[in-house]
């Protein structure tokens, strides 16, 4: 594969990682906060 194509792929994959990780960890931390709220009010 050419370097410019790999650079574009890297850019796309990195963007995907940032969005997916932000969504995933926000959801996980939200679940933990909800559990804590249920437990302690």
């Amino acid at each position, binding site marked *: 594969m050419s370097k410019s194509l790999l650079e574009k792929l*890297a850019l796309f994959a990195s963007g995907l990682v940032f969005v997916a990780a932000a969504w995933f960890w926000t959801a996980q931390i939200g679940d933990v906060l909800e559990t804590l709220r249920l437990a302690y009010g």
Partner: protein
Amino acid sequence: MDLLFLFEWLDTSLLAQISKAYGGVFAVVQMFHLLAMAMLGGMVLIGDLRLLNVLLTNLPSEEVINNTQRWFNVALLVLVISGIFMSSAVAMKLYYNEMFWAKMTSLGFGIVFVYLIRRPLLKFNHDSIKPWVLKLLAVASIIVWFTVAASGRWIGFS
């Protein structure tokens, strides 16, 4: 595609019989799993922090990446083999665990990311690659492998 049959097979396999019957064997394999995880995490951090110009800046980044990639491969192989063995002990429990699938998804993505994008791109002279692409790649790589490790740990809490 439903992989239930694979987990049912793993749950009754010879691996499962050994991992369930011999706690000592399980503990030793788990030790290798954790050692390999530490090694993989170390290699990811060394390589990616070099790409971010945070450490080992006195060494060419190509050299650092070549050396860390070699040990990354070894660590990943040990992780996968020991992980399959450990999974066999609780195969059905894992099948119904959402966090296990989050870990497998991020692991699958991480493997594709490393072997189809990161490694082929970093075979080129790093000076010829756009610096911000290198930095984005390094940060994304750290996030992916952090997610693999952290979601693995999260399995125990879910």
